[in-house]
């Protein structure tokens, strides 16, 4: 702790200028889907991946749905209209790597890595110097262990090709292509992501992370993830990283489907820190069968606009769903996040705890949905959302929707909006902290009980990241 404080005191504010150090692309590639979206682009992607006809049909059907659906601007921000679908490159094939040398990476980014304590071996990957993170040396032992347990951990192409008996049954079932416009887009052009199967009764001790996998498209624009935890199994998956990720692609639209069969437990951890030019429109949903548990731990710090409402369909008796969410919206950012809990069986319980921090002109929004239909009994939901506003023109919105019928069901929802109390800041400044440090400490205190829920290394990085974001916000 003392060491961190010392670092804090020594270093000046690190402002991450995201326009610096952009990727450069070479112009001629063997696999280039070109710019814009059309049935031939979709066919092209399917062809490059040598997919079976049914997957191609799935993609084409999704494209039609995408084209038929309107932008959800009747409830969502009109900023969505700034997405120019015709200017987007929907597929970057193998070999179409970003080219940048470590020397070209801006110093402030290197400093950020250092402050976050990112291992040397990962920095080059995160900075975009290496398109894939060569994790062979670091994580090979873990990979062997997983194979011994019978865990399948691969990309969507391999998953659907090599294990159709496992993945085809659930692929596109938790989140059908027609779920929303962006899920349809993803279904049409998906590439990259993780397909995971945990066999019956297997409890994976270490969290799985996308970058364990070698030579895969790890953080795709349109990644597709499907995790199936068979009966009684347990797994934690971690997505993203705390370090800022530099992207040229301005639209990210992932689909993540989780299936927890009887008695299984899935915990899905996300730390999203895209650069501030990115639209991050993600659909995430899990299904929990009898006695199963799906837990989303979601932290959004980056991007220009994030719209993400992880959900759990509680389909089996006694299933449990949980969403823990932290959002930090800085100048120019809009974190539109939330949670959905669809109760579909008796004795199901769900819990949502969302905390947001708005800094400068940042705007954070909570949208929630809790649905308990009339045939059910003994269902419970608890929702708490707290917002912290740092500066005079910071903004926060809360839009929950709660619908309850049936017997002996109960829901409670609470939300509060506050600012850091002047007394707290005064108290800390009396003890020699600068105003900025005091503010940073208070904000960390505000999210502390949620940060604790993150895996150890993430929570340490997260704390530092929040400190970083808070610098320069006051005084």
């Amino acid at each position, binding site marked *: 702790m003392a060491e961190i404080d010392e670092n804090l005191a020594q270093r000046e504010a690190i402002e991450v200028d995201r326009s610096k150090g952009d990727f450069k692309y070479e112009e001629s590639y063997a696999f280039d889907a070109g710019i814009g979206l059309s049935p031939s682009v979709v066919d092209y992607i399917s062809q490059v991946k040598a997919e079976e006809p049914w997957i191609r049909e799935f993609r084409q059907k999704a494209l039609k749905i995408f084209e038929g659906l309107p932008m959800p601007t*009747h*409830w969502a921000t009109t900023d969505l209209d700034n997405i120019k679908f015709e200017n987007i490159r929907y597929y970057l094939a193998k070999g179409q790597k970003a080219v940048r040398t470590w020397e070209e990476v801006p110093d402030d980014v290197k400093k950020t890595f250092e402050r976050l304590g990112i291992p040397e071996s990962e920095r080059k990957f995160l900075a975009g110097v290496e398109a894939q993170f060569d994790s062979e040396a670091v994580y090979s032992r873990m990979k062997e262990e997983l194979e011994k347990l019978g865990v399948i951990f691969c990309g969507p192409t391999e998953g659907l090709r090599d294990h159709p008996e496992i993945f085809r049954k659930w692929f596109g079932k938790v989140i059908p292509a027609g779920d929303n416009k962006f899920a349809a887009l993803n279904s049409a052009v998906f590439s990259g992501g993780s397909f995971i199967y945990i066999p019956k009764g297997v409890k994976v001790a270490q969290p799985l992370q996308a970058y364990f996998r070698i030579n895969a498209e790890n953080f795709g624009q349109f990644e597709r993830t499907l995790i199936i935890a068979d009966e009684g199994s347990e797994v934690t998956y971690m997505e993203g990283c705390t370090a800022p990720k530099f992207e040229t692609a301005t639209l990210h639209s992932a689909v993540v489907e989780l299936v927890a069969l009887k008695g299984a437990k899935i915990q899905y951890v996300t730390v999203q820190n895209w650069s501030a030019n990115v639209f991050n429109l993600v659909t995430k949903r899990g299904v929990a069968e009898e006695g199963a548990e799906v837990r989303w731990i979601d932290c959004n710090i980056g991007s220009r606009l994030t719209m993400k409402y992880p959900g759990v369909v509680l389909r089996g008796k006694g299933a449990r769903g949980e969403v823990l969410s932290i959002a930090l919206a800085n100048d120019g950012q809009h974190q539109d996040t939330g949670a959905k809990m669809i109760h579909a069986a008796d004795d199901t319980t769900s819990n949502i705890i969302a905390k947001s921090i*708005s800094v400068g002109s940042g705007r954070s929004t909570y949208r929630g949905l809790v649905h308990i239909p*009339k045939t059910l*009994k003994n269902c419970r939901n608890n929702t708490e959302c707290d*917002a912290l*506003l*740092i*500066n*005079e*023109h*910071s*903004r*926060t*919105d*809360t*839009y*929950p*929707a*709660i*619908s*309850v*019928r*049936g*017997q*002996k*069901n*109960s*829901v*409670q*929802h*609470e*939300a*509060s*909006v*506050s*600012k850091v109390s002047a007394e707290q800041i005064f108290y800390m400044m009396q003890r020699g902290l600068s105003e900025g440090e005091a503010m940073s400490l208070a904000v960390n205190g505000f999210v502390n009980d949620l940060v604790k829920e993150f895996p150890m290394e993430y929570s340490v990085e997260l704390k530092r990241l929040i400190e970083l974001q808070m610098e320069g916000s006051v005084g």
Partner: protein
Amino acid sequence: MSTLTAPAGVLDVALQSAETTQFRAQDWFAVLRQQGWHTFQSLPMPTRDDEKWRFSDARSLSLAGYAPAPEPTEALAAALIARSHFVARPAALVVHVDGHCVLRPALSPELTAQGVRFETLTDALRHHPALLQEHLLKHSAGLGGAKFLALHQAWLKAGYVLFVPKGVEIRQPFVSVNWTSTDGVAVFPHALIIAGENAVVSIQDYHLGATPDARALAISACDIHAGTGAKVSRLAVQGWGNRTQSFQVDNTCGGRDALITSVNAAVGSRRARLENTVRIDGPGADVRLYGISVATGEQEFDQRTLQIHTAGQAKSDLLFKNALLGKSRTIFSGLIKVAPDAQRTDAYQTNRNLLLSPDAEADSLPGLEIEANDVKCSHGATTGQVDENELFYLRARGIPLEVAQELLAQGFLEEVIAKVEDEEGAEALRGMLSAKFHQA
């Protein structure tokens, strides 16, 4: 609209124009009605996809088949006036039946001497045109009911105007009772309340159905203008007949240090929508919005509220409680908006729903939009059943299940009833709520 049959009743332009010509003497008012008609024609009917109509059964909305009714017979008028004495000694009482005034308000000479005015809308049009022109329908319906408010404006005629000048304090409540009686009647009651600086006034509005099984369309509106330091309290009871579609658009604006209390109670109608907007324009204002309902059968109570804080250092507090029986449904959708400069705002919003039947449905959409940072804002929503332990306690003492449930539900509702300052008003309300349990 069907091309085979020309629109009739309140949708008939000829009928609307004919009524408007009665107001040739008040040119501006005739224009206001015409504008209402044009706005009504230009706006689409709300649909399910409209966010402001989320959870509402917008598909079944229909304005066809309702028409203004002729004046009631003297016997009916007398019978209904006799049933309108909820308060033994009101400051004044006004009674309308099917949109026709059957009892003109009579103010005491003292109040008249103090400058207080309590008149029907049509009388006030002749006596105080300037006052009306300044205040009448100056707010828009921002919560989704613009089309319905436009129709109200197009047919505006029934209603009252209450003006309390600066510094006048009146303890006795002003009472207005609106009845529907004829099958298929459309009524558009209007209330305009203007309280001057430091004035103190309380109002009770009863909207009731005389013949329970008669179909009716009721689109009412109430505008309250509370000046600096004014204290206004209003009880509005929606007790239309059970085959009524009702829409109520209330707008309140509170100036500096104003204290406004409103209680909206709902027991009647097949479907009832309440849109209540409060604008807080002055620092130190304190606005309290309460809602209470007992929904039975297939009733749908759709409550939409908006608390807008444009001025800082003001307070608003909202509590809506619903008890649901049968296959009824309640929707509470509330929003607190704090403008960027409204620092030091305290705003709260609470919705509590008590499900007394497995087929009832309670939907809650409590929202916040906060653009200032030095605020205290919170909202809470709960939906649940009566507490098992409390039920057990009562049953162990030999109280039958139904009675025990009713007692607990009444206890649940009492918190809001207690906010009605006038004891007679509270008692009338208590009676109407309690009757719902027995007819259910």
